């Protein structure tokens, strides 16, 4: 239901259970966080297809790769930060390089970690995963897209990193929505000459809210949601640059190496234009209320709208 608040991690856990009959080869590996990532739902429904691996993320990835090479489709679901950092070598060598169909669920993506702070927020995982050849990166916006992408990821032949967030987020897609791999989704058409906002994951609901604030002021911004961060929909990015001329990127991630970086890398070569990247600057996260911290970095509807407004007025992010 549109606007309903649902945690994507919960949608992911439910989707695994829902699609299990469709994929008899699917198994789930858990490094002692299933009650957090919600794969505990799968544990309850399919105990014989669920492997509890203990607090040993790196080993879980290696075991998953072994299972995958024998025809299984293993999902490893863990805190995003511990997949992308503790288990990176195994992901790089045994999963990305082999191209085996190991499916990674980076749960607790971005800031929201239940106030865990620096060690628990995951604001580098997209950068890390993007740098791995052959890794598909999915960043669903809400529970509807999380469900659809869980199926899509399981179906894909190679490795996938599906990022879910811990907190509840508003539902922006109706139940019939089906994401297309590698294609951005137009959330607001906007009009040529105005700004385009390019966002990923849970930031897309906020980008839409910002666009609606701006529309009331007569500024018609385009909003593109990138449910796939890799491969990036270069056509949509270049078209936004050519048609709108100015771009704001918004991500629940560091501005280094994530969506904003991917957009800038593409535009520098294909369609240079002014870009403002909203995300976490080059800092570690701290504990605190998610809402307050997002706002501190301009990652709420008002902050996004303000950045777009300044850009539309031909001024930089600081007003300079």
């Amino acid at each position, binding site marked *: 239901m549109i606007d309903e608040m649902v945690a994507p991690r919960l949608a992911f856990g439910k989707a695994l259970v829902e699609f299990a009959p469709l994929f008899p080869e699917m198994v789930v590996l858990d490094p002692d966080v299933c009650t957090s990532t919600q794969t505990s739902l799968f544990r309850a429904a399919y105990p014989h297809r669920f492997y509890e691996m*203990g607090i040993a993320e790196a080993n879980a990835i290696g075991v998953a790769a072994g299972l995958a090479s024998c025809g299984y489709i293993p999902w490893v679901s863990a805190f995003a930060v511990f997949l992308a950092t503790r288990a990176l070598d195994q992901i790089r060598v045994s999963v990305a390089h082999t191209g085996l169909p190991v499916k990674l669920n980076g749960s607790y993506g971005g800031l929201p970690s239940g106030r865990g702070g620096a060690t628990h927020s995951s604001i580098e995982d997209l950068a890390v995963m993007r740098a791995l050849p052959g890794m598909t990166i999915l960043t669903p916006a809400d529970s509807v897209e999380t469900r659809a992408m869980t199926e899509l990821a399981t179906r894909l032949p190679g490795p996938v990193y599906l990022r879910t967030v811990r907190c509840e987020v508003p539902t922006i897609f109706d139940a019939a929505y089906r994401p297309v791999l590698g294609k951005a989704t137009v959330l607001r058409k906007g009009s040529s000459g105005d700004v385009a906002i390019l966002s990923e994951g849970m930031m897309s609901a906020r980008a839409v809210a910002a666009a609606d604030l701006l529309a009331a002021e007569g500024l018609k911004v385009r909003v593109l949601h990138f449910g796939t961060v890799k491969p990036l929909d270069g056509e949509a990015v270049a078209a936004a640059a050519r048609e709108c001329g100015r771009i704001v990127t918004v991500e629940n991630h560091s501005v280094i190496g994530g969506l904003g970086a991917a957009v800038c890398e593409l535009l520098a070569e294909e369609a240079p234009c002014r870009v403002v990247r909203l995300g976490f600057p080059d800092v570690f996260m701290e504990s605190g209320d998610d809402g307050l911290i997002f706002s501190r970095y301009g990652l709420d509807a008002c902050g996004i709208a303000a950045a777009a407004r300044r850009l539309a007025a031909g001024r930089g992010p600081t007003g300079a």
Partner: protein
Amino acid sequence: MKLEERARELEAKARELRFHIVDMVHAAQSGHCGGSLSAADIVTALYFEFLNIDPANPDKGDRDRFVLSKGHACPVQYAALALRGFFPVAELRSLRAMHSRLQGHPVQGKLPGIEVTTGSLGVGICEAVGLALEARLRKASWRVWAVLGDGELGEGAVWEAAQAATKFGLDNLIAVVDNNGLQNDGYCRDILPLRSIPDKFRAFGWAVLEMDGHDMEDILRTFGKALLITGSPVCVVAKTVKGKGVSFMEDKRDWHGKAPNAEQYAQAVAEIKGGPA
């Protein structure tokens, strides 16, 4: 003072720690009660009897180093540091709040008395080996005490650290395993069976002592023995109960990382203040 008398004093102190653990997690409505409460008696003994530390001079060079490798249990360390005078007790309620020095997991340099950033399990014990090695290189007399979770022992890094400590003969390193039998998703025996923790550490070349992690006299005696061991690192396996001291939290998976509501808070405080030691 007789050991028995000292134990009674420390039991009272541990009660204070337990109160503040529940109090700060309740105030934050976020944090880990279970693993903090299971380590409360161990941490009390260390901070109030064994560690050579000085709140007036928290960085003094010859201080003992305490490393909470199971960083999620930091409420127990924060409570000990505050009650030991490292910072105001009133600050405990800022746990996990924006800009607080009491981060969700311990951050080195953020708060006096925090030596090592932890929270990613398996990280702290490696750094503890480095601290102990440094003492060895400097011919310094201070010791390194590390507290680990039993679930944490699943991380391969722990065993990398264990081998390095043996190689360097770090008898100035004492690792205490809070053997509460539970981890995040359930009992260790179901999640990743540990078999015998003492046998494992012995096989890695460590001296091993076992104790009841809630019997203060046993803790005092065992830690005293640990200090006398030379030639190898020492592992103290402490049998504990997760959530110890609050009946409805004891041995309950649910209370690994959950905050009490108002009613549960009131009951927990009543039990801690009034119940048997």
